[in-house]
Structure formats: structure tokens, C-alpha cells
């Protein structure tokens, strides 16, 4: 049978439990705008030995599956966002070239069309050479735009690595703390770091039965295992903006994960550098090479007004690689546009066979392995980048919508509602007041008893 001292202890525990509830609510309210914060609840249980209620600690409201879904979506969203950003940047750079590539190629042919009417007109010859120069500048401008975009992506990838390693360290430190004692705030921080890490590098953070988080990047490389981290390292080649190498782990043989990631912001940067930028540059180089080669072939089989055989109109490398950046108009032609081979070999100066043959290349399938005209291939190249950017934007919107949905679910489960907290605060205050009154009553009873004795 419980005595008065036992009843006094019961009241004290009840008061302490409800005070802990008030403190937890205070903590919730003060963190109402803290990113990643999960509302906390005091764990109240019936004390079956001593009777009454007792506070067994504080727990956070969480859903492990939801957390994994959030990290998974963060990974996809990170990939889509970075892809969108990089592709829109490239799209904008290519569009910002004063005269776009298709326009400058077409303008060159327009100049030839005008030259047909008066092949010996010095102004028109000068105009054709100028248009050829503009076109060469269009190619080099596009090549520079692609190179710059790839260099920026390399820079972003290097910067991401620093943050990735820092987040891995945060998760490892949190694991170390949580192995010692349960702490909802540290668990929140770990979840937040894991979500951000997933956004940066893809992969997922799994919480093992021992409460430790193991973070594995896409492809299987382990970044965090308990309190240990495996650092990530990015290597770029300044002379080749379309190259990048990413490794995980220190020591003599780190794991090369360049082709494994495929998710998160870093995966998007790698994909952009080794995929879009590299492919676009190769396509541009091939276009420039094919175009210049076909024009040169016609021009060198024609004849200038002075009777000399045409010179190559464009100076280009021997192979397609690097042609777009290097293409230029023959300096001799620039100095003396009258050397344009406007006539057919052996014909008088007023003949326009040479001009007509060059003009015929406008509608000739000289690009993309003989399947497209040069202007169509240039349009296809730019539209291709636009298409990828468009697709990335759509994917970003999709993952943002999914992220919103998951955030709403998380909010429903773990968010802090001030209204709700105020109600619970009122409950705890009343309960604490009741416990206080109860303790006072027992105390009074004890005092009366002692006075009677």
C-alpha cells in the first residue's frame, strides 16, 4: 500500500514529466523554421512499479522510408537541376553569339548568291570573304562557348567535392555521437546532411539496425561507414575541358567512379562534361571540318579573275578534332578578295561556274555523314542542346513536384505546428499545475499529520 511519501514521489514524477513536455514544446517552437527539424515529443509512460507517469526521454517523429524517399528524390533533383543549369547556360551562350552558326553559314551562301550577279565586283568579293570570316568566327565562338561551359562544369565539380567530403565528415561525426547516446537534434543534422549529400552525389544513406548511417554513392562506392569516411577527389585537365576523373578513397588505388555516379549534382556535371559538351564539340568540329573541306575542294578547282587556280578558302587542321576553334579564312584571300575562284577553270573571268559550284553546296548533303546540309546540321546541333535543356527542365519540374509532395508528407508527420504546440503546451501547463496542486495537497497532509503527531 502506498504511503504519503510514495504519493509525494508520484506527484513529483508527474510534475517532472509535464515540465519535460513544456521544455520539449519550447524546443519545437524555437525550431519552427529550422530546416530539417523534426518535431519532438516527450515519451510519457505509466510507471507500473511506482505508479503514476514518468518521462522516459524525448523522441522525434520520423519515418525512415520517407527519409529514404526524400534522399532518393534529392539525388534525382540534384542531377536534373544541375543538368538544367549547365545546359541552359550553354544554350544561352550559343544563342548569344552575335550571328548564330546557322545564320552565319547561310549568310555566307547568300553572299555567294549575290556574287553570282557580278563575280568581279570588288565589293561583293570583299563581302563574301567577310562573310566567310564571320562564319569562321561563328564556329570558333560556338567552340569557345562549349569549352567555357565545360570548364565551368569542371570548376563546379571540383567545388562540389569539397562540400561532399565535408558532408561525409558530418555524417560520420553524427554516427559517432549517436553510437554513444540518442540525440534527436544530432539525428536531424545527420538526416539533413545525408539528404544534401544525396543531392550532390546521388546514392542513398541507409540506417542499419545499430542506428548507424551507411552512405553509398551511386555505383556502390561507400562514402561513409559508421564513423569512417572515404574521401572523394576530382581531377581535371586544364588543357582538355571535356575530361574529368572522380575517385573515392585515399591510398595507392582509389576507386574510379567517374562513369558510375550518374546521379546528383556531381553526376550531372560529369554527364555534361563527358557527354553533352564532348559530343557537341565533336559534332561542331565535324561540321566545321566537313564544311571547310567541301568548300576548299570546290574553290581549289575553280579559277580566280587573274587566271590563277583557287586557293583553299579555309585553313583547317588535318583532322576534325579542334577544327571549329582553329578554322580561319586563308590570309591571302583576306588580303586580296579578287583571288576568289569565281570562274570554272579555263573560262573567262566573267564566268560564274566557281561561284555556282560553291553555292550548290548550300543544298548539298555535306554534313552528318552525308545526311544533312551544313545549315541543317548547325540547327540540329543547337536544337539538340536546347532539347536536352528542355528535357532536363521537365525532369527538374517533375522532381521538384515530387519533392514538394514528399515535403508535405514530411511536414504532416514531422513538421511543427505552432497552433498544435500551443494546445499541447496548455495541456502540459494544466497537468503541471495539477501535479503541483497534488504535491501541495500531499505536502499539506504530511504537515497536518506531523503536527497531529
Amino acid at each position, binding site marked *: 500500500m502506498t504511503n504519503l511519501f510514495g504519493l509525494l514521489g508520484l506527484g513529483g514524477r508527474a510534475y517532472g514529466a509535464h515540465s519535460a513536455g513544456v521544455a520539449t514544446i519550447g524546443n519545437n517552437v524555437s525550431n519552427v523554421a529550422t530546416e530539417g527539424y523534426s518535431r519532438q515529443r516527450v515519451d510519457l509512460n505509466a510507471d507500473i512499479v511506482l505508479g503514476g507517469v514518468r518521462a522516459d526521454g524525448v523522441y522525434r517523429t520520423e519515418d525512415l522510408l520517407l527519409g529514404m524517399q526524400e534522399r532518393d528524390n534529392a539525388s534525382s533533383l540534384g542531377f536534373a537541376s544541375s543538368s538544367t543549369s549547365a545546359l541552359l547556360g550553354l544554350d544561352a551562350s550559343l544563342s548569344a553569339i552575335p550571328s548564330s552558326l546557322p545564320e552565319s553559314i547561310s549568310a555566307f551562301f*547568300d553572299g555567294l*548568291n*549575290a556574287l553570282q550577279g557580278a563575280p568581279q565586283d570588288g565589293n561583293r568579293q570583299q563581302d563574301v570573304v567577310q562573310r566567310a570570316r564571320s562564319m569562321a568566327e561563328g564556329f570558333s565562338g560556338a567552340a569557345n562557348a562549349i569549352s567555357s561551359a565545360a570548364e565551368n562544369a569542371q570548376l563546379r565539380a571540383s567545388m562540389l567535392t569539397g562540400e561532399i567530403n565535408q558532408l561525409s565528415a558530418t555524417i560520420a561525426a553524427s554516427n559517432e555521437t549517436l553510437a554513444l547516446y540518442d540525440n534527436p537534434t544530432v539525428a536531424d543534422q545527420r538526416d539533413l546532411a545525408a539528404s544534401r549529400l544525396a543531392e550532390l552525389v546521388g546514392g542513398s544513406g541507409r540506417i542499419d539496425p545499430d542506428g548507424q548511417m551507411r552512405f553509398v554513392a551511386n555505383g556502390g562506392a561507400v562514402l561513409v561507414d559508421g564513423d569512417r569516411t572515404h574521401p572523394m577527389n576530382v581531377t581535371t585537365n586544364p588543357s582538355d575541358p571535356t575530361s574529368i576523373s572522380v575517385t573515392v578513397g585515399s591510398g595507392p588505388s582509389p576507386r574510379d567512379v567517374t562513369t558510375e555516379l550518374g546521379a546528383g549534382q556531381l553526376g550531372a556535371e560529369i554527364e555534361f562534361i563527358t557527354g553533352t559538351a564532348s559530343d557537341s564539340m565533336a559534332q561542331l568540329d565535324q561540321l566545321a571540318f566537313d564544311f571547310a573541306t567541301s568548300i576548299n575542294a570546290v574553290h581549289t578547282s575553280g579559277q580566280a579573275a587573274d587566271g590563277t587556280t583557287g586557293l583553299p578558302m579555309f585553313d583547317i587542321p588535318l583532322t576534325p578534332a579542334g577544327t571549329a576553334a582553329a578554322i580561319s579564312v586563308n590570309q591571302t584571300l583576306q588580303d586580296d578578295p579578287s583571288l576568289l575562284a569565281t570562274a570554272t577553270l579555263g573560262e*573567262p573571268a566573267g564566268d560564274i561556274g566557281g561561284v555556282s559550284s560553291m553555292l550548290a553546296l548550300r543544298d548539298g548533303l555535306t554534313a552528318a555523314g552525308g545526311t544533312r546540309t551544313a545549315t541543317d546540321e548547325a*540547327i540540329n546541333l543547337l*536544337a539538340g*542542346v536546347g532539347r536536352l535543356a*528542355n528535357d532536363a527542365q521537365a525532369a527538374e519540374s517533375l522532381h521538384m513536384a515530387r519533392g514538394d509532395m514528399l*515535403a508535405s508528407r514530411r511536414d504532416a508527420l514531422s*513538421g511543427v505546428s505552432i497552433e498544435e504546440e500551443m494546445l499541447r503546451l496548455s495541456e502540459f501547463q494544466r497537468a503541471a499545475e495539477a501535479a503541483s496542486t497534488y504535491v501541495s495537497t500531499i505536502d499539506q497532509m504530511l504537515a497536518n499529520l506531523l503536527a497531529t503527531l
Partner: protein
Amino acid sequence: MRITETRMLRLMSDRTMNTQSSIAKAAGQVSTGVGVERPSDDPVAWADGMRTKLSMDRRDTHESTVERARDNLNRTDSAFQELVDGLSRIRELAVLGGSDSYDQSGRTAAAIEIGTIFEGMLASANARSVDGEYLLAGSNSDAPPFDDTGAYLGNDVLRTIEVNDQTFKQTGVTGSVLTAASGIDIFGTIVSVQNALEANDPATTRSFLDDLAGSLDQLGYAQAETGVAANSLDQSLGALDELEVSLAESFSTSIGADPIEAATWLANLSNELEASRVVSERIVSLMSLG
């Protein structure tokens, strides 16, 4: 579903930002009339628009080239008219000089006048285009097609230019229409008439009257040929005018923004933004009360 005030505020904030972004886009469409500015806006529409724009530029060049060729034909026609005028006067002088009632001094004066007309006709036959090319020289267009004696130094190569997408037309007439290759050597006949008059030989002078009449017919045929070529170019210009209208429509369809649609969109977005602002204020107010 349980939803906290913070979440509501966040949703409204995102909504407001999205609406503001859309407003900027709609305002751009209203002010520029362009709905697709970059490939990423709509790759297919952009590619269509770019192809159409290049076709418009190409059409403009064709028009300019055809107009220049048309101008050359006008100059050629004028040159032929001057030749007709000169030849008509020479024929009159030959008729007079071939008459027995004309005396030697009259024939000498006629010969001198024919010499002057001959020089004028040579200048007309060596007429140049605005670009400085000799109109009747064929592809030898950098040198006068007729020498001082009226001998033809040009060739028969006519220029073929592109007048529309992969449509080509021959332009101009060569000086061979004035030579024996076309029937009568007109300048040679004039020289012969002049020589007969100088020699005070009315019979020989009379013998060239038929050739002079034939020369006028030959020039008339050359003028007609020039007219046919000019008419053909006029038809090309007409086709290019029609093409301009259809390309402009196509361009507008591809990348243009419907102004009424864009303005309506802008108005709706403005209302949406105002509604977002009011709701956000209400949420903040509720949070303050809490």
C-alpha cells in the same frame, strides 16, 4: 492531411516565385512578340523558326540578285533602243545617199554623220552594268565586247543565276545578236554603208538597204529576247513576293507569340500574384497570432 503554417508559407512563397518568373516571361512575350527566343524554349519550334528565318534571308538575297539582273536587262534594253535609233537614222541617210539626186558633198556629209552615229552605237553596245561589267560580253565581261571596228570580242555564254531555292534562270543577252552569227553583221554593214557613201557610190549604198532593214529586224528580235528575259525575272520577283508573305506567316506561327494570348496570360498571372500575396499575408498574420 496535417499541414503546418510554415509549410503553407513555404508553398505560397514557392508559388509566388514561380508566378513572378512566369510574369517576366509573359511580359517579355508581350513586349517582343516572340514566344520562342532560344532552342531550350521549344527546340522543335525554334528549329522551324530558324529554318524559316534562313529562308527569309535567302529570299531577300534572291530578290536583290534578281532585281540587279532586272536592272541589267533594263540597261541592255536601253542600249538596244539606242542602237535601233542610230540604225534607223543610218538607214535614212543610206536611202538619201543611195538616191541619184544626192551629190557627192551630201554623201560625204552623210558618211561623216554615220561615223559619228557609229561611235555612239559602239558605246551603247559596250554599255556596262552598275557593277562595271560589260552587259553584252557574255562571260568575257571584264573587257569591252566590241572593238573600234565593231568586231565582237565577247562570247555566247549566258549567266545562270539562282532566283529561288534551287531554281535557276539565264539572265541577259550577248552581243552575238549584233553579229553575223545571228544573221547580219550590223556594225560591219554600217561600215560598208559608210564606205560606199564616202566613195560617192549610190548603187552600192542602195545595195545595203535590205541589210539595214534586216539589221533593224535583228535588233527588234534582240529587244524581244531581252523583254522575255525581263518578263521571266518579273515572274520570279512576283513569286518571291508571295514567298515573303508565306514565310512571314510561317515564322510568326513557329516562334511568334499571340499578343492577345500573351496579354491574357499576363493579366491572369498578375491576378494570381496578387492572390498569393494576400494569402501569404493572412498566413503570416495567423502565425503572429499563434
